[in-house]
């Protein structure tokens, strides 16, 4: 494993590691990151012993909220989240598929009422089974495999 760091360390904040290559920007889009103020380091297509290639995101001064971790899990089910304090990893965990996914993704069924733009409705998907994770739209009841979710982010 190469010890050379492609992205410099952050002092306090969050590192999201083991993101599938090319997905980093999708994650930035769904996190509450202020691109005008926050310090964000993004590495794309970095060599990884585990994944071949991977993306990494480091956000200075930010701790992820619960729902943000859930969103990361949708795009990058293999991701690990590291909480950094004074340049040290103080907490490290793998993301898990969330029980419910609200508002983040659109339903793949074009005839679902949630795809009617006139209606005041947020999408809601509930985890129906694990291994492999499958979600069900609470409205049209269509089943959606979790690995399709990244393509359905609004």
């Amino acid at each position, binding site marked *: 494993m190469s010890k050379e760091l492609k992205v410099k360390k952050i002092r306090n904040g969050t590192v999201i590691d083991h993101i599938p290559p090319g997905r980093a920007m999708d994650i930035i889009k769904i996190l509450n990151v202020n691109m005008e103020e926050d310090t964000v380091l993004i590495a794309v297509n970095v060599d990884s012993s585990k994944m071949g290639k991977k993306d990494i995101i480091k956000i200075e001064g930010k701790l992820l909220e619960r729902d943000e971790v859930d969103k990361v899990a949708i795009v990058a089910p293999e991701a690990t989240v590291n909480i950094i304090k004074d340049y040290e990893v103080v907490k490290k965990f793998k993301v898990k598929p969330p029980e419910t996914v609200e508002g983040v993704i659109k339903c793949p069924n074009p005839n679902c*009422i949630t795809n*009617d733009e006139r209606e005041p409705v947020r999408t809601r998907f509930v985890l129906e089974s694990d291994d492999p994770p499958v979600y069900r739209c*609470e409205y*049209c009841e269509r089943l959606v495999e979790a690995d399709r979710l990244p393509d359905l982010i609004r």
Partner: protein
Amino acid sequence: MFHVISIRDFSRDDIERVLERAREMEEVYETGDDRLEGKILCTLFFAPSTRTRLSFESAMLRLGGDVISMVGKEAASTAKGENLADTVRTVQHYCDVIVLRHPKEGAARLAAEYSSVPVINAGDGANQHPTQTLLDLYTIVKEKGRIEGLRVGVLGDLKYARTVHSLVQALAEFGARIYLISPPELRIPEHVRVDIEGKAEVTETEDVTEVLPELDVLYVTRIQREMFPDPEEFEKVKGSYKITRRMIEEYADDDLVILHPLPRVDEIEPDVDELPQARYFDQVRNGVVVRMALLDLILNG
């Protein structure tokens, strides 16, 4: 019981409660009653279904209630200008219960979220039609006295026919043995099959005559053009199965019960109608009885 949106929301106990109340309604169906006097039902049909609407209206009138409705063109023109959430928030003030048919899947769930009065789903696109499932179950219990251990064949479009999925899931839950009979192109979706195989013994076949001698109940469905995403696919399979009088006389048990949600196109030959096994027109009456039971449970508790 408040909203009736999806059979998935019903526990086994809930279903049994509806069937029990439906049995009580058999007599009320004959004599009429005034238990829902002063209550108003509004049928809100954004997609056509005259039978389902009339069945609900008949059920309400037999219980002494009143009916108002917005159907067809009226509902359709509203749909152009106004969203469903607004329509529901308006109509709720005109009535005590809303019966909704809508072309989009999930419409009833959305309507229920905005409505202060109970919403009954009378079909949301290709998704759910819970009162159909309940009346199918009621018919089977009424005809056979039970569901557990019954051998029930379901024939036809098992891929797109919305009510078939709910029906076989409920049958599996109640312990029936299930025979899935369809042309290869119209086989039941994998996830539904896996789901019921976990609960019931399931046989899949293309040839109805092969399993006909074993069956207690044969539930026939029609192929619905509007359910097919691809018209070419529809052309390929339409008319691909048919129950004939000869088939029943040659292979079926005398006390087989043949059901069909109606309307029929050509999947059951008309001369089957005279056979003692044909019960699909009795099933229509059961639809009214079950809807009476639901209205009574919802509005009277």
